[in-house]
């Protein structure tokens, strides 16, 4: 949990006060500034320096609203530094407040380069938004604009454009207050102020990416995302990060129904507050990896991998699992609770032992968010009844079974393709994965969607249920994982003990279904 969230929950004991916002009487938390009460009421109050996850400084002065207290005449006040008080009457649309905000915008735009056409922030820039809402449409400055460093590298993650910067100091406070590793400062003074790092050192740490989110303008941008997409072309879906067992709430942002371009943190007080780590943010390789397994693959008697459609592959898998009944079910830690439940039911029918693959913790753990545990649904699968088994143990145990059902994404990576190849030939292996590796030990493989194409629930390390959501369509020929597991289960039930054993339980006999051949995408 982020520090700011901890602060939030600690302050809830204070008694609420009643104030009036735009004519409505509302309850407000006096431990929070007036702007928070306005936002809670759904009133848009422009703000740059204020960020709900950081301490307020009241320096940008854009959040001016009309406030009347007691017998005093109404005044225009900065809402982010005004404490809420009983009986306060607030008018966010007061003409004087509008004027003050319009004037403030004129000052903020005086030296702003207005290079919106090539700015990555365009479309989600609040300087644009508020200028549109309240600005005056015409600049009155004929003075030359400030010339500063337009592409100052601040390390591996962030590029700073000092000209676009409006000096809100959110980035400075972020490092001071969230990871508590102060690295940025405002250098120089007055109209010469610039954001810079101490001694021009590059930024370090696993939380730098947040700077690009909290920067209200395009001054701090991600090197990864720079000039990659126009943000309005991104399809955005609320989901959960797959980076570790924290399960930070994220937005998955996909360009043209195809490439995942960004993961960005989504506010979730119980999990990640407003932040996420760079490991999770930049985990774009896995969801975007090409050469997906679409449909099914069978390794016939000839030993050649042969593409088939999903149902055919599942029927062969059914035959194999029935004959070689003593099976180990190995689930990927990326499986959702819903998929795990289906798989567990299947395992019960089969009488198989269910485990999930539990790789070694990594050394990315910190006090803030990253748990160091690469299994996003460890808790969910454990609570369902899957045993956590380390990679070596899985590989050691497998030869003692007749067959193995490996289900879920990244299993090949985690088990290791080489290790898979050395499994005994007597072991029948059915693999439901997003990718395929041409290995003699894999008898049947069926493609499933990866975590940006599925939906379901992951339970994080603290027991918080996070939803993952479909951010892009599954590749052609790929069934939802639940449907695949469910179908295999159905097939197994239909041929339960007592029913006629299928004629051929060995791979090789492939029914030909014209036009339904699978492809390796």
């Amino acid at each position, binding site marked *: 949990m982020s520090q700011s969230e901890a602060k939030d929950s600690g302050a809830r004991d204070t008694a609420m006060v009643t104030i009036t916002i735009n004519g409505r009487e509302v309850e407000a938390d006096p431990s929070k500034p007036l702007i928070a009460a306005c936002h809670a009421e759904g009133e848009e109050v422009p703000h740059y320096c204020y960020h709900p996850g950081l301490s307020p400084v009241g320096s940008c002065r854009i959040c001016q609203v009309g406030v009347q207290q007691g017998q005093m005449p109404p005044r225009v006040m900065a809402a982010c530094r005004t404490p809420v008080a009983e009986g306060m009457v607030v008018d966010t649309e007061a003409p004087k407040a509008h004027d003050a905000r319009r004037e403030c915008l004129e000052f903020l735009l005086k030296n702003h380069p207005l290079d919106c056409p090539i700015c990555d922030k365009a479309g989600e820039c609040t300087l644009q938004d508020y200028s549109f809402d309240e600005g005056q449409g015409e600049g009155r400055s004929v003075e030359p604009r400030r*010339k500063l460093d337009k592409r100052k590298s601040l390390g591996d993650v962030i590029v700073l454009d000092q000209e676009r910067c409006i000096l809100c100091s959110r980035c400075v406070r972020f490092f001071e207050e969230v990871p508590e590793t102060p690295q940025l400062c405002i250098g120089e003074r007055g*109209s010469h102020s610039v954001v810079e790092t101490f001694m021009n050192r590059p930024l370090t740490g696993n939380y730098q990416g947040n700077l690009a989110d909290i920067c209200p303008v395009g001054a701090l941008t991600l090197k990864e995302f720079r000039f990659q997409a126009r943000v309005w072309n991104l399809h955005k879906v609320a989901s959960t990060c797959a980076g570790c067992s924290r399960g930070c709430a994220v937005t998955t942002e996909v360009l043209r129904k195809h490439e995942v371009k960004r993961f960005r943190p989504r506010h979730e007080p119980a999990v990640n507050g407003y932040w996420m780590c760079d490991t999770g943010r930049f985990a774009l390789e896995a969801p975007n990896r090409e050469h997906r397994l679409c449909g099914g693959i069978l390794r016939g008697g000839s030993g050649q991998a042969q593409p088939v459609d999903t149902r055919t592959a599942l029927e062969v898998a059914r035959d194999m699992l029935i004959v070689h009944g003593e099976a180990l079910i190995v689930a990927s830690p990326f499986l959702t609770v819903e998929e795990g439940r289906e798989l567990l039911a299947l395992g019960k029918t089969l009488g198989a032992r269910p485990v999930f693959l539990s790789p070694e913790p990594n050394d990315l753990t910190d006090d803030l968010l990253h748990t160091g545990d690469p299994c996003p649904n460890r808790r969910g699968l454990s609570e369902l009844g899957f045993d956590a088994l380390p990679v070596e143990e899985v590989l050691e145990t497998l030869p003692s079974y007749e067959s193995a059902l490996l289900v879920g994404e990244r299993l090949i990576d985690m088990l290791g393709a080489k290790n898979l190849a050395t499994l005994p030939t007597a072991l029948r292996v059915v693999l439901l994965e997003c990718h395929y590796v041409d290995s003699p030990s894999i008898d049947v493989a069926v493609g499933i969607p990866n975590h940006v194409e599925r939906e379901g629930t992951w339970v994080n390390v603290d027991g918080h249920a996070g939803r993952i959501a479909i951010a892009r369509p599954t590749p052609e020929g790929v069934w939802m994982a639940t449907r695949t597991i469910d179908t295999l289960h159905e097939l197994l039930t239909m041929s339960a003990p007592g029913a006629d054993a299928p004629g051929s339980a060995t791979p090789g006999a492939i029914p030909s279904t014209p036009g339904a051949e699978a492809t390796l995408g």
Partner: protein
Amino acid sequence: MSGFETYLLERTQAKDSHLLKVARGLGTYGALKKILDTPLTPKDVIEELKESGLRGRGGAGFPTGLKWSFMPDADKDTRKRYLALNADESEPGTCKDRVLMREDPHTVIEGCLIAAFAMRLDAVYIYVRGEYRVPYERLAVAIEEARTAGLVGPRILGSDFSCEIHMHKGAGAYICGEETGLMESLEGKRGHPRPKPPFPAGFGLWGQPTTVNNVETIYNAPFILERGAQWFRSMGTKKSPGNFLCGISGHVEKPGVYEIPLGMPARQILDEFAGGVWKKRALKAWIPGGSSTGFLKPDAIDTSMDHDSLKEAQSMFGTGAMIILDETASVVRSALTLMNFYEHESCGQCSQCREGTQWLAQIFQRIHDGQGRMEDIQLLEDLANGMAPGKTICALSDAAAIPTHSVIRNFKDELVEYVREGGHPDLRGKQPAVHQEVGV
């Protein structure tokens, strides 16, 4: 010259007045001794100050006794508490505190001790402007002298009252004379003013209750305690009692620091004390109380120098530092000088001030250089409206907006003339100045 009672500069006139031996002979520490011997309670002292009607001499003119009473009750709030003495005198035109610190540091110390006693605190920080080398040294030596004599430190004059005084040297930033900027600077941070609330009396230095007073304000306290509030009220006006130190500079025959009762017409100060506008020239403009109070026309010279009269004249008493401009001076150039000052001294936190001070300076520069446009006059006014009043964390933005408004209100003709005729008279008909791009 009109006769009136004086006290502020009396002790500074003596030879070696900065030495303890001399100062004690002049009566310094008498008020402190009276308080401790009587003994008066802290409440008595604050009541006496309230009764006297003393108003702060640092610029805002806030009643000092009232300010002291804002400190939380020491019985209920046992936090450590501080007095910060604002000796970062840097408002252009102002040079009164320098005289007091340099010539009579012991009365400054006595004032601090009385304030500390009244507010029940035992730590005073004196924040001295970095350029004030001699005043700083005199004060430092005086504190040591007083410590040796048992006047500073534990159990002062054998009483239960203890108080330590610390010195701090500023590093040249005007903004550190703003009370919250001063506190940040004292804490070792950048001198960025803090938003209020919280106010210093509740959350000041290191988050503890703090009062910040100006040197001249504190200097008045021993006299009030020794001679009584009624004596103090016999001077000055009803709402602004007492005398003040008027630093008068610019185009006058005898610039200097003079002791003046509040309420004396500015013309009288100019003519009787400063010897009138120099070289028998006519008055063109004047600033009543430091650069932030704006330019006034000659016809306002009959205004009384006190808080209310100057407010009526759409200005402020400020620090009581008059600046006189004669008929040959250029108000536009003077305003440009001031705007360059404010641009240089803006801390850069608030958007309006950071961008506005620069913008105002740029526009005045263009008008001065002959590249002004008629619409610039309206723009100046709009910008000044956007910067003040009360739209920013501290009053530096206001301090730049007030002179701008005053130029437009009182000297619009000159602005128009500069725009029409091509800038400052010295530049007319010459090659226009090349504007350099701003940046690093």
